[in-house]
């Protein structure tokens, strides 16, 4: 092993040394070496097929970073060497290269090419590629699809737009982390399924941030503080070819976020502002008072029990006429959302910059004064030397937010209160205890005056320096630093609680910091041997993360206004702190080759070392091979199918890893006990555990028809995660039930993904574009030796997906008792896990999106339909219990209203049976944007470059048969997932 380390050491040293050497060289080179060729100014006009000038066309000098864009009249002017080549590119048009040849004026016509397939650069992480030449599977979403969406975390913008990427909302509370799964669940551990986030080359922990607040279940999204409007593109790397270069962190896919950079010519000011309202789009269909009381009475009649104060307070004690719509009460409000952006950008041939800031605020739908506010600032700088050899780019993104959310709103119970329940608040605004106490109940609004204020700050900086030593040979290094901190105060005033319990004023504090730095030196080499083109990278990574958290509680504050001021707390309890360090080092390499732009071969590899593993298992190798054949370049094919403009077959295979296993797991260590002053071991130590290995296989076909007016992509993938790190079960006499160890259990994800983009119609005034994607994922636990004896015995089944529920076999209503009945499979006269033999698959069967984009003169209409086919479950509440039940209740197919124990046991078994499974599929109008560009001619007269007005709707309409709140969370009937938001705004460019 020692040999391997030293090899790694040598490579790292060579690269590091090289960088330092050449950086010092470059400083002089940049100032002294004279331009090699005569420079001259070239200008001209760029028009479309119809001769209409195209503004915004990028004009660059080939093989340099120098460039400009055409102005509103389609004119440009650029300094270029007399023997150089100009490249004209614009989305929607074919890229054209023209030799300067001492010409001072070059005017051209661009030919439409809807796909932009060959031209748009795709970020593959350490290198760029194009859709045409890529051997891997990379999905991409760009600024236009993100910037106007009223969302907090940019990830939410991806819903429905990418094949294979499944995003479920973390709920209606602003700031809650969404769940993102790229091609399914790979790890048996829920915490082992986060993708890798990389922002401008810097990795960010994808693990949601811990909180005590209502966001606790989902956690806080670590990307909240990014400004979605400042994102240029989000690329998702899915297959082995694309992810293997990320080695032990690529198993669950990689999300690359690239922020916007400055324009290369002139100065510009851009303002964007929108405002609107959000509300909960759906309600449960609940009973009104008379029907509710009828069912309650029927229950007592059926049981032959006399209603009394303790078992039927809603019938005996409470007003029989009163009606409160508890849903309206709990989340019936409109939440205001406002966003403002201001960006200033500019530059010249060698230097460009972009400076921006934004403000975002969003209210909540709950009673009380709660709000999410976010302020962001960003800066980017790009400079290269006169001789084009030296380049430096830097970006900085800073965001701070303050999230004030309700401290204890028991939504889950509040909307199921009996419709005739007494008021929660007295007329003076205090909690109504007396009326509830009469019924022997605590006020369900207990904790109402609690609130939670979470403030976070997030700084992400990255710098990249490169120098071209020899033609085609470049040395480069990336540097990054990130810092995220959060500070949370949960106030629990005494008036939130029943005075009978002598409550005191309390507070809970939690703060955490995540800090990381990374250095990635790289050598890049490009060379052509005739028709063979070779692109290679050799690089190394050194990274360190430090995170810490502190928490404590203060109690017995003298007055409510002092809560949170720890000096005023009589006692400070449960003070805790921890600090975690994570170090990571790697060398990686990539060789991309192609022959005649027809045959492509891409080899990537990485050797990783991570501190998360025991000293015996710190290093491992990962790698992948990707190939592609552009058969449409073959003459025989071209002759036979001239209408097929692109035909590509690609395949990749390789391995990636997953090191999301928590830090220090291998240590035989003691931790602080929950009680103060104590230490104790919390687990058995196993110093030998290692990473999960994920092997991905993919085959793809890409076709373009009629000059790429229609593009079709089909991918089939299979990824197998083995060496699963799980709790290996032990008898309790060993002290603990399990020890962390790698088991030869294997999880497989396989599926099909189809993407289709068409330009249905396109002329001078009108165009219609459609894009469609669909994913058909499958998930299976292939093997797990000894699962019966493991703690997963009642969670997973070999041969079934991971996301399942084991159910009783529902056999209908027992005519004798009137209760739900089930098969007692092993005939032992009791219902337990052995009888839960029906496997209910909760994996999405298929999902996708359909996006249409119409433009007519200055108008544009874009709308995205998201669709999901899946199962769901909606539990019709136990008729007879004092909770409001869904009005779907009727005597057919439901057990008789009852209060008895046997009845509620039958009901709770029914929850764990196939009884309440229903269709959770839905079609949702996810986004709709209508925008209008004011005519340019008019604007120019008042000095405005662009004036755009837009109306935007989010989650406007959902078509589903599911009866719960949001079919996206089809197993949590009363979970508020996505809010419906309508906004209006304007964008002005000067």
């Amino acid at each position: 092993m020692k040999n391997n380390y030293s090899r790694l050491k040598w490579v790292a040293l060579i690269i590091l040394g090289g960088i330092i050497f050449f950086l010092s060289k470059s400083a002089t080179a940049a100032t002294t070496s004279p331009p090699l060729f005569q420079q001259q100014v070239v200008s001209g006009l760029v028009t479309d097929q119809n001769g209409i000038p195209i503004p915004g066309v990028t004009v660059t000098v080939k093989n340099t970073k120098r460039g400009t864009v055409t102005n509103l009249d389609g004119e440009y002017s650029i300094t270029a060497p007399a023997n150089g080549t100009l490249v004209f590119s614009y989305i929607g048009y074919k890229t054209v290269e023209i030799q300067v040849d001492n010409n001072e004026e070059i005017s051209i016509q661009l030919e439409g090419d809807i796909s932009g397939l060959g031209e748009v650069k795709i970020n593959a992480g350490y290198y760029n590629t194009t859709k045409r030449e890529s051997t891997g599977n990379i999905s991409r979403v760009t600024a236009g699809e993100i910037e106007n969406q009223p969302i907090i975390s940019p990830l939410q913008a991806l819903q429905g737009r990418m094949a294979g990427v499944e995003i479920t909302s973390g709920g209606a509370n602003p700031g809650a982390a969404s769940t993102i799964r790229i091609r399914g669940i790979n790890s048996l551990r829920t915490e082992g399924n986060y993708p890798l986030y990389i922002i401008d080359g810097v990795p960010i922990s994808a693990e949601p941030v811990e909180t005590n607040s209502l966001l606790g279940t989902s956690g806080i999204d670590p990307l909240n503080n990014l400004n979605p409007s400042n994102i240029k593109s989000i690329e998702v790397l899915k297959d082995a070819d694309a992810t293997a270069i990320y080695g032990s962190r690529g198993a669950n896919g990689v999300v690359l976020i690239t922020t916007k950079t400055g324009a290369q010519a002139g100065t510009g000011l851009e303002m964007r502002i929108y405002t609107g309202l959000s509300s909960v789009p759906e309600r449960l269909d609940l009973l009104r008072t008379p029907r509710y009381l009828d069912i309650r009475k029927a229950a007592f009649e059926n049981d032959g029990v006399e209603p009394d104060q303790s078992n039927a307070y809603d019938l005996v004690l409470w007003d029989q006429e009163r009606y409160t719509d508890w849903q309206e009460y709990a989340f019936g409000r409109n939440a205001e959302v406002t966003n403002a952006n201001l960006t200033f950008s500019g530059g010249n041939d060698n230097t460009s910059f972009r400076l921006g800031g934004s403000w975002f605020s969003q209210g909540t739908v709950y009673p009380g004064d709660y709000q999410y506010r976010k302020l962001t600032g960003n800066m980017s700088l790009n400079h290269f030397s006169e001789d084009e050899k030296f380049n430096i780019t830097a970006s900085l993104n800073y965001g701070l937010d303050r999230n004030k959310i309700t401290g204890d709103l028991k939504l889950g119970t509040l909307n199921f209160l009996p419709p005739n329940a007494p008021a929660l608040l007295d007329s003076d605004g205090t909690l109504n205890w007396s009326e509830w106490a009469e019924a022997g109940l605590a006020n369900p609004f207990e904790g109402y005056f609690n609130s939670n204020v979470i403030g976070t700050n997030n700084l992400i900086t990255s710098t990249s320096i490169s120098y071209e030593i020899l033609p085609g040979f470049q040395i480069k290094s990336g540097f990054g630093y990130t810092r995220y901190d959060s500070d949370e105060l949960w106030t629990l005033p005494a008036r939130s609680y029943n005075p009978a319990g002598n409550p005191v004023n309390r507070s809970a504090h939690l703060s955490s910091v995540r800090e990381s730095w990374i250095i990635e030196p790289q050598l890049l080499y490009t060379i052509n041997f005739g028709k063979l083109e070779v692109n290679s990278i050799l690089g190394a990574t050194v990274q360190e993360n430090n995170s810490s958290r502190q928490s404590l509680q203060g109690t017995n504050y003298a007055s409510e206004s002092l809560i949170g001021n720890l000096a005023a707390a009589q006692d400070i309890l449960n003070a805790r702190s921890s600090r975690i360090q994570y170090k990571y080092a790697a060398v990686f390499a990539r060789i991309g080759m192609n022959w005649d732009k027809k045959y492509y071969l891409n080899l990537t590899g990485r050797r990783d070392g991570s501190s998360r593993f025991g000293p015996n298992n710190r290093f491992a190798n990962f790698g992948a091979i990707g190939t592609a054949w552009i058969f449409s370049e073959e003459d025989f094919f071209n002759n036979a199918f001239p209408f097929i403009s692109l035909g590509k077959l690609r395949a990749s295979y390789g391995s990636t890893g997953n090191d999301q296993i928590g830090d220090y797991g291998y240590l035989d260590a003691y931790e602080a006990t929950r009680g103060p002053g104590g230490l104790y071991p919390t687990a058995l130590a196993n110093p030998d555990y290692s990473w999960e290995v994920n092997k991905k296989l993919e085959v793809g076909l890409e076709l373009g028809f009629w000059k790429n007016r229609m593009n079709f992509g089909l991918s089939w993938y299979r990824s197998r995660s083995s060496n699963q790190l799980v709790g290996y079960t032990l008898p309790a006499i060993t002290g603990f039930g399990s020890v962390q160890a790698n088991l030869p259990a294997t999880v497989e994800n396989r599926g099909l993904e189809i993407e289709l983009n068409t330009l249905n119609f396109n002329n001078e005034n009108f165009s219609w574009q459609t894009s469609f994607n669909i994913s058909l994922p499958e998930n299976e636990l292939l093997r797990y030796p000894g699962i019966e004896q493991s703690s997963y015995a009642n969670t997973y089944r070999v041969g079934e997906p991971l996301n399942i529920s084991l159910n009783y076999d529902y056999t209908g209503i027992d005519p004798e008792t009137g209760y739900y009945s089930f098969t007692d499979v092993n005939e032992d006269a009791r219902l337990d896990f052995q009888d839960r033999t029906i496997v209910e698959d909760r994996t999405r069967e298929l999902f996708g999106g359909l996006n249409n984009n119409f433009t007519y003169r200055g108008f544009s209409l874009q709308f995205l339909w998201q669709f999901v086919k899946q199962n769901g479950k909606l539990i019709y509440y136990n008729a007879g219990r004092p909770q409001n039940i869904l009005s779907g209740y009727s005597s057919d197919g439901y057990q008789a209203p009852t209060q008895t124990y046997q009845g509620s046991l039958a009901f709770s078994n029914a929850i764990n049976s196939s009884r309440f499974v229903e269709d959770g599929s839905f079609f949702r109008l996810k986004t709709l944007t209508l925008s209008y560009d004011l005519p340019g001619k008019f604007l120019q007269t008042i000095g405005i470059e662009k004036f755009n007005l837009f109306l935007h709707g989010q989650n406007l309409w959902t078509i589903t048969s599911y009866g719960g709140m949001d079919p996206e969370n089809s197993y949590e009937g009363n979970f508020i997932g996505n809010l419906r938001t309508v906004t209006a705004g304007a964008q002005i460019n000067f």
Partner: protein
Amino acid sequence: MKINKSIIRTFILLLLSFHFSCEDVVSIDAPTDKLVRAEVFSNDETAISAMDGIYNELHQAEFSSGSRSSVTVLAGLSSDNVQYLNSGNITMMEFQDHEIAPTNSGNLELWTSAYNIIYLCNSYIEGLTNSTSIDAELQQQLEGEARFVRAFTYFYLVNLYEIVPLILDTDYRVNALKPQAEKEEIYTQIENDLQFSSEILNTSYRNSEKTSVNKFVAKAFLARVYLFLGDWQEAERLSTEVIQESASYEILENLDDVFLANSREAIWQISPIGGGGIVSHTNDGSMFVIDPFFSFFSTLKLDESLVEEFSENDLRREKWIGYNTSLNAFFSHKYKISSSTQFPIQEYSMVLRLAEQYLIRAEARLKMNEIDAAVEDLDVIRRRADLPLLAEINPGISGEALLEEIYIQRRKELFTEWGHRWFDLKRSGNIDTAFHSNPTWEMTDSFYPIPSEEISKNPNLIQNDGY
């Protein structure tokens, strides 16, 4: 070529100046919230903290917590003192009905938590023994405390399950397949540990609260062990030593004061501080006390046969038993607080108290035919309950009648404390008579089943008879 030369030169320079290996690049400092085991036992303070950790965990561990799956609750249900209010809760009703399924989750929690505490003690004892840097006297003291807790835990295991694996180290590879040890072997280990503790430990409480183990705690518990083993002389000798320590312990006149934190009657208590969080009070209180406002949270009531056993004027009937009208249920009111965030904590969970020592000595003396002395001890308990003294109303009581009276007083004095009644029924041989009216009762029910999940993971475990 010139460039190449300077590149090589630079590399050589760099290599000379840097010398690091990749192992260093990914080696990290220990976290601040975790201490590597060797470090825990490298100094006095952290070694003490680790012992305090065990005391804290006694509040968390199900078997000793006083909550749902504790010895107090489950063995209480098995005895004729406690009943479950919700007859639909199968897990709990199985204890009350003596029909415990080997898959019963409460039984598994009881077992699992006890062995977790044993692991903590074993890990602790190993760490101490291997340490060379802890003050020698402190090392002995701490070892005495840990060995006490281990013996204490095995005492309940052996009395609940009869034969259990005897685990004395932390090697999970070996322990995972360990078979059960004979009852005698376990008792020998308990005796050894307790003798060590009672010799080594100081007479004062290390943390000045009655939540750590001192010499008298060890002696008091050893007195009980000898009583169970029928070694009357030793039981009498040890309980006498505890009773004579009047500087620390006394029988409190006011029954309301007995279960308060660090009460003068307490010999050893478990503090609810071990629960962390916003402080609450004892689990015993929250399990047994029926709050008039929150009666719907309550799950336990007292068996009416216990309530009927008390005479009208018995102070314990008045002070230690409550009644809830809406549930028509009697409840144990030894602890007064069901739940409270008051700090400092008012009540600690009682494990050993002086009254039991009098009862132990009374029984031991009776067995040694010292009837008068036995009556004298029993009268200490009766006097406090405001009952007429036996020495006055029945001075010539027969040995047999006195033994019966001792058991009755034990039931009335120690109900809802650590399953005393269940163990008394078993060791007195009265268990069959107590439950013969229950049609499903069998003698094999006097031991709980080994949890089936454990047997499935360790094939060397043998299920108890009758399951």
